[in-house]
């Protein structure tokens, strides 16, 4: 399979200072093996765009502990005490974005749209300094598209061309993230033959995917655990 790669090799393609789009909602649909490798890599000054920063010491939370991050853009960081702490000490920049604005901004990044007008956050602190415009049904604020240098997504399966399907609500931000970066790496549980995923069922067509890596995690009791922890 042409796009199949080793986790160690693809993570080398990430450069210090890159903006990473990372799929997942908390730890669900999160590319855990790629994150582990980045944490081990010593990369610096990364900006992560993701709904959360995982949990304390887990998922994207590991990048905080490892000191890879300069900035996080997302909707909800309060569930990771490390993020709150790093921000208080001035060690981490945080840009807070409403969850729907985040999803739409990333989709726009992938769609060649520079910005869009939404009512979400109108009249709040998060709209301060943003361009306002009045349309037929009232005032809207302009939100700009978000793009990444690299996107890391987690899918259930890839086929040998790189088409992806996701596991239930593990889909979340992954399909949008996969459209909006120069380099897109998908971590998957398994690879099947092209043709095994029906044309109507493919969620992320292969055109978006540059590399596919196999996860090092195994699912046990409905949760991904590292092989060492598995029974």
């Amino acid at each position, binding site marked *: 399979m042409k796009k199949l790669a080793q986790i160690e090799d693809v993570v080398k393609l990430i450069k210090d200072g890159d903006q990473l789009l990372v799929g997942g909602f908390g730890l669900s649909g999160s590319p855990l093996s790629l994150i582990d490798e980045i944490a081990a890599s010593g990369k610096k000054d990364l900006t992560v765009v993701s709904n959360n920063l995982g949990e304390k010491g887990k998922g994207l939370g590991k990048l905080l502990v490892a000191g890879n991050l300069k900035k996080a853009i997302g909707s909800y960081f309060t569930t990771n005490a490390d993020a709150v702490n790093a*921000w208080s000490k001035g060690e981490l920049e945080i840009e807070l974005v409403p969850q729907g604005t985040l999803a739409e901004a990333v989709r726009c990044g992938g769609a060649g749209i520079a910005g869009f007008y939404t009512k979400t956050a109108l*009249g*709040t602190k998060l709209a301060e300094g943003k361009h306002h415009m009045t349309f037929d049904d009232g005032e809207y604020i302009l939100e700009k598209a978000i793009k990444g240098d690299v996107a890391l997504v987690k899918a259930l399966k890839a086929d040998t061309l790189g088409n992806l399907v996701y596991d*239930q609500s593990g889909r979340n931000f992954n399909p949008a993230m996969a459209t909006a970066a120069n380099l897109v790496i998908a971590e998957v549980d398994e690879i099947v033959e092209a043709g095994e995923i029906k044309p109507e069922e493919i*969620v992320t067509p292969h055109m978006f995917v540059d590399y596919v890596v196999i996860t090092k995690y195994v699912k046990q009791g409905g*949760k991904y655990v590292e092989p060492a922890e598995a029974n």
Partner: protein
Amino acid sequence: MLSQQKRIDIAKRIAAEFEDGQIINLGVGIPTLIPDYIEGKDVYLHSENGLLGMGPTPEEEFINMDLISASKKPVTLNTGASIFDSSDSFLMIRGGHVDVAVLGALQVDETGEVANWAVPGQNILGVGGAMDLVSGAKKIIIATLHTSKDDTPKLLEELTYPSSGARKVDMVVTEHAAFEFKEGKMFLREILSDISMEALKDITPANYEVAIEKLINT
């Protein structure tokens, strides 16, 4: 009355508001109690992370942490449920396709403006889908205890906490009362506890018109 019982009473009262066929989004806090009280109603639970038709918590052996609610708890799918990505999920919320959003609140002012994401002086590091729901749901019901733990009123003349959006909510239900908002005005519609009108007024700095009128048959 124990706090948990008050919260259950609020959940029940709000559940009674739902109509068959409605699409409902339930926020964190008291709203998460509501699913226990909607049995027999044909409503469909929407979850920000990409589900329509969320069902009850699974048995331990069927838990899949890639099938979770927006509160990150394992759930199941009811018959006819669907799965979609975050951008489609928020298209639903922001495009006015969710009939009712039930949200918690830190404060609500007498015009129906809500504050439910940040406390001044504390770290402001989480907003989640709060502002999306406030801006987009067809009807917004706030589920909240009447006062905070230290008895500070939550229903105020003016917000002192950061607003969640210019859009006004439609209804507030507390353990004591149900209020409705119309054209920027607040109306007391139902008394839900044994509180007196005077005592209610004392813990409710917001100006409201008394217009008791059972909103629905509960």
